[in-house]
Structures are given as C-alpha cells and as structure tokens.
C-alpha cells in the first residue's frame, strides 16, 4: 500500500512540475469546449441573402420583411436583373437568393399558385439545405396566415417538434463530443506518455530491478490521470452549463459514473499503447493517430454514423468514443436513466477489461 501511495505521489509531482503537461491537461479542455461551442458551430445565424423581386407588391414585401426579421437571415442586397444572381454568389457575400415571379400577389390570389425560387450555393450542401428549409418554412408560415382568412378543405399540416433540443442547437451535440475527445486525449495520451517516459529516461531499468509488481506499477501510473480526467469532466460540465447553456437533464451521478467508466477505457488504451512504443514522441504520435482521428471521424458527433457506408459503420463499433458519445447524449441531453444506457456501458466495460488484460500480459518484465 505504501508503495502504491508513494508512486501516485511521485506521479503527481511529475505532472505538477511540468508546466507543459499542466497546460495541456487543464487549459485544453476549456479552450476546446469554448471553441466548439461558439466558433465551430454549424447553426445558421444571420446569413446574408439577396432578393430579386420582380413583382414588388404587398405579398413579396411581407415575405421579404419576414425573412429579414428572422434571426436566420439578413437581406443584404436587392438585385435588379437575373444576371445579377450569379454575380452575387461570385462575390461570396450571399448564401441564398430569393426570386419572386412577376405579378406574384395577383397569381397567388387568382390562380391560388405563385412561384418563388430559392437559389442556394450547393457547393456547401449541408448549409444550403438548412438555409432553404428555414426559408421555406418562413414562406409557408406566411402562406398559412393568408389562407387563414379563407377556409380551404383538406389540408395536412405537419407539425414538427424537435425533442430535447427544440432550438436545434449545435452545442447539444458538440458538448458530448468534445467530452469524448478530451477524455480520450488526456487520459490515453498522457498515460501512455507517462509510462514511456520511464523507459526513455531510464528509470524503468531501476524500477524493474525492484520488488514492485507490474500490476501495481500500471495502476499507480493510471490513477493520477483518471483523477485529473474526472476534474476535466467537471470543468467541461461547468463551462457547458453556465457558459454555453447546455442543460444537464439526467442524473449527474450517473453521468459522472459513466464518464469514469470511459476514462478507465481510455487509460487502458493508453496503457496498451505504452507497451509497444519506445519513445514519448512515438507514444504521442500513435495516440493522436489511433485515438483522436477515429474519435473525430467515427465517434458520431462530427459525421452521423447512420449515413456512413456499412463497413465504416461496423468499424465505428470499436471506437470507444462512439459509445460514450451515445451515453452522454442519452443521459445529459435526453435525461435518460441507466436502464437506457446499460448496453453501451457494458461495451465500454468489456473494452476496458480486454485492454487491461492485454496491457498486463504485454507488460515487459525485462528490457527489450
């Protein structure tokens, strides 16, 4: 027990006396969560649009006014001729052009059909789709109001509600994603680097020629990073709750327990990486390549897994972050209980046990 305590103490000395690692551990999570929360969002806010109004009547004015008043759009430019449309896009200032047919209101009232064209920049398909959807719904809102004065038979009104995230806020998706990313980085990379450092600075040679058991060595190496990662979870939750207004709908203890489980998985990954890398740089590179990229690409929070080709969907199952991302979304955003996430938790537990066993087996009791 004394061996264990002094080892953990020594490990904390290493961390707190190395400014660089301290900076990584405590500043990076806050930076990333704020970066993702504010800057890198895929929400549409105040997109510039241009209008080519060939009708200039009461109705078109009302629609333009509504578009401009919404928080999604700002009317940036009024175009005079169809040839201006291309120019407007080429300057890069507008994301959508709204074109009204001549005699818009007249044909709306007399033939009950009027045409408005929405032209968006398809080179960014996601944004284009979102923008046209927003604009479409604003226009149909106006249409409904107009119809309200008359009675029309047979109308189907789809009423759409976005559950758990009624405003479709991107941060709701990013916070769990960033949590997964930070934890895998800190816990796995720092653990692997910490162990490999002992090899690199030669202290491993002395540690090996001592009665210290491999299991004790591994556990005492991992404990400080598990603890620090938990501190990070708390920091991230605080920042996202108070700064980014992301609610914590579920049980906080369940969320922390699940985070602890994921941290253990990440630390086990780090331990495994340390068994086959020789230098700190190697361990760092490997952690970045093998953990960060899959987490970003296959973790599900950047690109939805359901829309990936089948092989990638299968591969994504071995990415621990994917499961943690699902758990955090369920618990934190949807407020679900353990009964809804036990399967994902079991997967993480299984991964941890598997990785721990491997790293203990692969632990070299001799040099080379």
């Amino acid at each position, binding site marked *: 027990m*004394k*061996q264990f305590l*002094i*080892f953990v103490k*020594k490990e904390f*000395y*290493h961390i707190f*006396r*190395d400014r660089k690692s301290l900076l990584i551990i405590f500043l990076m999570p806050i930076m990333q969560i704020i970066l993702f929360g504010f800057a890198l969002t895929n929400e549409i806010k105040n997109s510039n649009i241009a209008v080519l109004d060939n009708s200039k009547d009461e109705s078109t004015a009302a629609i333009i006014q509504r578009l401009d008043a919404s928080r999604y759009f700002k009317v940036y430019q009024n175009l005079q001729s169809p040839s201006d449309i291309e120019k407007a896009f080429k300057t890069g200032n507008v994301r959508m052009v709204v074109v009204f047919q001549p005699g818009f209101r007249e044909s709306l009232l007399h033939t009950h059909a009027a045409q408005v064209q929405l032209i968006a920049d398809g080179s960014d398909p996601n944004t284009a789709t979102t923008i046209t959807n927003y604009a479409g719904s604003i226009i149909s809102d106006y249409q409904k109001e107009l119809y309200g004065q008359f009675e029309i038979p047979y109308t189907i009104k789809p009423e759409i509600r976005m559950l758990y995230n009624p405003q479709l806020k991107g941060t709701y998706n990013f916070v769990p994603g960033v949590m997964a990313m930070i934890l895998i980085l800190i816990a796995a990379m720092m653990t692997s680097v910490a162990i490999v450092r002992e090899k690199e*600075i*030669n*202290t491993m*040679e*002395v*540690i*090996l*020629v*001592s*009665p*210290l058991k491999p299991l004790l060595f591994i556990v005492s190496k991992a404990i400080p990073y598990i603890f620090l990662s938990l501190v990070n979870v708390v920091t991230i939750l605080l920042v996202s709750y108070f700064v980014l207004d992301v609610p914590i709908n579920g049980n906080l203890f369940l969320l922390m327990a699940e985070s602890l489980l994921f941290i253990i998985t990440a630390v086990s990954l780090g331990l495994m990486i340390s068994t086959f890398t020789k230098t700190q740089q190697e361990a760092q590179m490997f952690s970045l390549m093998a953990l960060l990229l899959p987490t970003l690409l296959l973790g599900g929070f950047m690109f939805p897994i359901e829309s990936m080709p089948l092989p990638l969907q299968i591969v994504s199952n071995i990415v621990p972050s994917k499961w943690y991302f699902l758990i955090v979304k369920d618990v934190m955003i949807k407020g679900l209980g353990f009964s809804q996430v036990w399967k994902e938790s079991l997967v993480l537990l299984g991964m941890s046990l598997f990785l721990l066993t491997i790293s203990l087996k692969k632990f070299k*009791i*001799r*040099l*080379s």
Partner: protein
Amino acid sequence: MNAITVDHIVKTYGSKKQVLTALDDISFEVKKGELFGIIGPDGAGKTSLFRILTTLLLAEGGTATVDGYDVVKDYKQIRKSVGYMPGKFSLYQDLSVEENLEFFATIFNTSIDQNYDLIKDIYVQIEPFKKRRAGKLSGGMKQKLALCCALIHKPSVLFLDEPTTGVDAVSRKEFWDMLKDLKKQGITILVSTPYMDEAAMCDRVALIQSGKIMSIETPENIVKEFEGELWAVRSADMYRLLNDLKQYKYTESCNSFGEYHHLLLTKNQGGKEGVLKYLNELSHKNILLEHTAPNIEDRFMQLMKNT
C-alpha cells in the same frame, strides 16, 4: 556459497543476418563480500553482463546465479535483494534528492530511517542539497545520490555499471573510498569501469574485451603476469618519439602513458643501449630511459595483442 556465479553465459544481439556477440562464453565467480571489478573498454560487453545478472536481459546460453538464485527462474527473488545502479543516470530529474531517496526506499518496502546507517557517510555529502532537484545536481553528486538509492534497501549484492564514467577525478577517488567502506559492511560489489587505474582498488578483476574474459586475477597478480621487461621512455619531442619507437626493429609494443611511453622489446633484444643508440641516431634530445613496473593497462594491452 558464491554471491555471483556466471557459467558459460552467451549473449548475442541482432537478427540472423548480422549477429553481434556481446558476451562469448563467459564464466566467473564472485565470493561473498568481494569487491569485484569488470574492467574493459566501451563495447566490451560489460553492460550486457550487468543486465543479465540483474535479470533485465535473458542470455542465449549458459546460466547465472545471484545470491544462489537463478537469474531466469528466480528473478523475483533477485529483484528484492540486489541493488543496481545502471550506467546511464536513472533517477527522476524532476524530483528532489530527498524525494528520490524516499521513493526508492518505499518501493523496496523500507524507509530511509531504517537503513540510514548504511548510507549515512555518503548521504551527508549531498544532504545540504536535499531540496534540490536531482536534475540540477553535479555529475559527482548525481552518482552519490544514485548510490544512496541503490543502497537504501541494504542489498546483499550491489551492481554498479560504470559508476565513475563522466565523473571528475576527485569524485572518482571519493567514490572508490565509499565502495571500500561498503565492502566492510559485508556487501558484495560488482563494479565495471573502463578506467584501468581503478582496477587496483578491487579485490579481484576480470579483464574483458569483445565479450571474452582475458584474465581473472587480483590486481597484483595481473601485473605479475606481465611478460617481459618494460621500459619507460621520455624525450623532448614525445610525439615523434612514439612514432620512432614504433618503427624500431625490436619493438614489441609501445604505448603512451602520461609523461612516459611504455616500451616492450621483443625478448629484450638490444637492451637499453640498443634503444639509446637508435634514438640518438634520430637526434632525440633529453632522452630518459629507465626500467618501470608494468601496470594493469600494460597487461591489458599485452593480452589484447596476444588474442
């Protein structure tokens, strides 16, 4: 019982294509309480031997025991009872002197107080700096701290791999004095060094070269084994003197030792007069030529030449 037995140990590195033999069928024994030196140049296989004995490497052939325990089967026992100081500095640079010592004491299930007597004489020298980080110590102090850490659990056998490499002359002298004190406490010490002059401090030494032991003897006997008469030669131009002596027809070997060149003649042909005549012909000035007692390095060079 011997503290260390090494029996036909073979160690090779590399793949099948390019095999590098580090230890070539080595055997020797170290008695309990002995201060045993492994003397040889860099790359002779000293570190490989130490790592095999401290259970860090596996030998390809042969067996070895430390304290009666087999280095392969009973490695756990050996790791409990030996002290090891690797050739490269291997303490935590970002931990203070005191923290390093406390850490290694605890790892070996003991405490500084428990075995303080053993390290007291060494530790008092670095105690004024006990709050200083190990990375900021001088080379000599680092070695002292490393020795303290290797000693803190009162090992039965102490392995010191090139402890004086990169340490100044005064600290080297101090270090060997410390080893002699430790020997009095009954600790068996196996020490390696590339410095021949340090061999004289050991009870017995093994001269090792290219993975082979050339001789195992007490330092006195090693010197006695020297074959032939040795001359010390000096003149005004030492560099030219060395080259000229090497050209001399009866020269067996000639090596530079500080302010003298050590000259060995083949069967002492020509004697002193022959050499003097040869050197005078080459107009060397202030020639000094006298008999000298061979040292361990002379014997080492001789053995190297003969193999």
